């Protein structure tokens, strides 16, 4: 059974030409699917559609074997598929790192004590323990990105959806992110412009072309085939 199955997705923002025009996508367990395409091609839109934040005009979304049509069908999807936003500032809204990471587990019905335990364990595991009581909006850009990832991982999702995770990261932080991602068992969908990052993490690449997802033929020899 595939984790995600998107069929014939059509989507356009109000007053704009359509972004997605019959896009198909399927994600299997263990797959690390990279999605690429030019700016504004609809990559981020696609991720938002997968967790029901945007409603496609046409097409069907099957997540974890369930056909999802209404908003409430997506409630459980959002617990099992974690979306990491492109801008970490969009995601971090609690005063401290610990509170922000605990937000997801609390939404899943964990007790505050359980959530705090999860936070501590996760930060240790990611070697970010020193950030636990820091104020979120005073973190550096790289730290914000890693904490945003942690805040999604804390929900123990089965699928990770990452929107341009390496955007504006320096080499050191990017290496850290790559190491963390490589150590994760989850299936992933990665939106990324960076061919070298895709090569390190991904095992399959699709390109958004004119609103459709096509198997990608890499043009750079360092890029993933």
């Amino acid at each position, binding site marked *: 059974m595939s984790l995600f199955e998107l069929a014939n997705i059509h989507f356009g923002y109000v007053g704009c030409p359509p972004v997605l025009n019959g896009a198909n996508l399927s994600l299997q367990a263990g797959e690390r699917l990279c999605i690429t395409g030019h700016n504004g091609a609809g990559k981020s839109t696609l991720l938002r559609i997968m967790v029901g934040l945007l409603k496609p005009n046409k097409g069907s979304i099957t997540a974890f074997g369930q056909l999802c049509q209404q908003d409430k069908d997506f409630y459980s999807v*959002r617990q099992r598929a974690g*979306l990491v*936003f492109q801008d970490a500032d*969009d995601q971090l809204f*609690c005063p401290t790192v610990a509170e922000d990471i605990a937000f*997801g587990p609390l*939404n*899943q019905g964990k007790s505050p004590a359980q959530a705090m335990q999860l936070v501590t364990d996760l930060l240790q595991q990611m070697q970010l323990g020193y950030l636990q009581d820091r104020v979120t*909006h005073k973190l550096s850009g790289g730290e914000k990105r890693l904490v945003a990832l942690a805040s999604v991982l804390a929900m123990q999702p089965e699928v990770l959806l990452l929107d341009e995770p390496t955007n504006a990261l320096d080499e050191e932080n990017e290496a850290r992110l790559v190491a963390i991602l490589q150590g994760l068992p989850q299936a992933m969908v990665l939106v990324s412009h960076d061919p070298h990052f895709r090569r390190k993490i991904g095992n399959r690449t699709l390109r958004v072309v004119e609103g459709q997802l096509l198997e990608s033929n890499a043009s750079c020899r360092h890029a993933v085939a």
Partner: protein
Amino acid sequence: MFWVTSIDPRVRIILALLFSLVVVSLKALPLLLVAFAMGLLILPGSGLSWQLTLKRMLAMDGFILLMLIMLPFTVAGDFWFSIAGFTATWQGLWRAVEIALKANAIVLMLLTLVGSMESVTLGHALGKLRVSRSLVHLLLFTVRYVEVLKEEYQRLRQAMQARAFRPGNNWHTYRSFGYLFGMLLVRAMERSERVMEAMQCRGFNGQLPMLAQLRMGLMDWVFISVMLAALGGLMYLEIYRVII
């Protein structure tokens, strides 16, 4: 092009203000009806839709509704009716009608004359009228950044939803919304500092140059004359009680 929008914004602001002062001092119901009718007469020339204007007036009425209902019961005078031991009076009723008419006449005129202006035009006109610069800047920046803030709010909300947040009647929800608004405030503060820095880099010294050159034309003088004549007439009739 609607004729009201071609009139100098400064003239519109001043006349709307003058109109409000006159209407507030009127007491005779027929005169208040005339004042209200003046607003209705100008409305088509402003290009505003009837429905939208009515909706905005009703929104204002919502604020004074409770007071209007209470008035007949609180003003002393001749017996009108009584309900559960509370007595309503005719004088109270007329007072309520008077206040409702005044409020609606003023709001209608404000909407047609000032509400039909772009907010940026309003800011510039106020600047030309020597309203405090800080207030004008406040207005202009609100117009510019309110959408930015709205988008920021919506992105944060989506990110919360993506982490399985569903509002309910519990502490977790209250705390989370508290954090959300707190974070928006912090972001707005920081953004304003960045905007300020960027403006300073471009030579901002506390003065926003205004591009629009406002000039009074024939149309403006005609409108001023007609309005002043009408307002003067209302005041004359009110003071000397000619018709009542």
